[in-house]
């Protein structure tokens, strides 16, 4: 059973636990009209239709991993600053994992967390906006914890595979929320630039020559960071491209 014991800077620490559900993001969305507060967590042991990016399903064995959604109300952000949410949540997950896997955790732009060259966690953020105002953000997170077998094609890895140890899911959930809340609190600070730099320096492939595909061509490029909208800054020869995620693939 899940319980938030950590002292988080949110108005509630309520946890909705579902033994199984389609998608925690969907349940969280359904809770919104009832006026749930920032900090509410929806968590399940078995997500039957978890949403991954581009229609991919998140593969998770029941009861072995963390699959949950956190409700946030970043009304202090403008919609076109929303990539900062991805930055905050990515860094929160990375910081938590760095405590147990120092130096081995990277953020694969824009929103996957990697241990070495394998995916250990994924994020799916769904916002509701009215005009130019934020209403609410539902932050879905999947972290592979105790699962030790994955389909090979997924290139996935778990905390257990990385550390050799079994983890207590509730303890990990609390640690994760502490680190996410810490990074989220920094969104309200003025000094966002240093903090964006930290995201950039955590990027998989940052500053390295790698192969990319964009606009139907394959080429060697170097990731230089992201712009204010979260677009990838990719150096190709003398020019710097600004690319949305569908416009580019990192090949290796």
């Amino acid at each position: 059973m899940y319980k938030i014991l950590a002292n988080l800077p949110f108005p509630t620490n309520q946890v909705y636990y579902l033994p199984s559900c389609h998608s925690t993001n969907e349940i969280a969305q359904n809770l919104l009209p009832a006026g749930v507060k920032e900090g509410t967590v929806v968590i399940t042991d078995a997500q039957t239709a978890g949403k991954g990016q581009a229609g991919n399903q998140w593969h998770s064995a029941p009861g072995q991993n963390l699959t949950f959604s956190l409700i946030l109300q970043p009304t202090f952000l403008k919609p076109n600053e929303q990539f900062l949410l991805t930055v905050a949540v990515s860094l929160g997950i990375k910081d938590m994992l760095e405590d147990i896997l120092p130096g081995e955790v990277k953020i694969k732009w824009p929103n996957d967390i990697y241990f070495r060259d394998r995916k250990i966690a994924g994020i799916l953020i769904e916002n509701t906006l009215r005009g130019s105002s934020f209403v609410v953000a539902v932050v879905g997170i999947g972290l592979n914890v105790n699962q030790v077998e994955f389909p090979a094609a997924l290139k996935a890895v778990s905390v257990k595979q990385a550390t050799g140890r079994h983890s207590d899911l509730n303890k990990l959930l609390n640690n994760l929320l502490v680190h996410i809340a810490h990074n989220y609190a920094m969104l309200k600070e003025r000094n966002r630039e240093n903090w964006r730099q930290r995201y950039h320096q955590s990027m998989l492939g940052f500053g390295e020559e790698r192969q990319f595909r964009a606009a139907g061509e394959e080429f060697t490029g170097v990731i230089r960071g992201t712009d204010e909208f979260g677009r990838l800054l990719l150096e190709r020869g003398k020019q710097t491209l600004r690319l949305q995620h569908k416009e580019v693939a990192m090949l290796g």
Partner: protein
Amino acid sequence: MENASNKKKIVMKTKEIRDLIDFIAGTGLNEVHIETEELKLSVKRDRKITQVIEAGAAVAPVAAPAPQPAAAPAPAAPAATGKPADSEPASGLVEIKSPMIGTFYRSANPESDAFVNVGDSVSVGQTVCIVEAMKLFNEIESEVSGKIVKVLVENATPVEYDQPLFLVDPS
């Protein structure tokens, strides 16, 4: 340690419990557990019977939900958004614009119907489209009520910040 430092009492009010039951009733879920420091609540649905099992100490019996007695402040109605007076297009039509760069989607997924079509009435707060940017998915709600006159952008195509997406006749 955590218990001592966390002084905030989170007591579930009967209204919240009722909301929760309503929520469960409206979904296909059979079982929901909620656990905070003060309470542990399990709700199971058995066909048409909704059963509330109260296992914590902090909750009052919930058999007869009474109107919430606490001196609740009057619901703070959000300041009236009013009719946007800025940059109205010709003939009194109002534009719904993209609040960010991204990709414009008219439906939640390729299999489902468009959120709105030309001729549909929309109300304030109604979802009209999704704009996806760097894997953040944004449901855009209308700020105006009226009738959709024109959809200005093709489905699944890129949009710029402030680009008009829909024309709405607010009259």
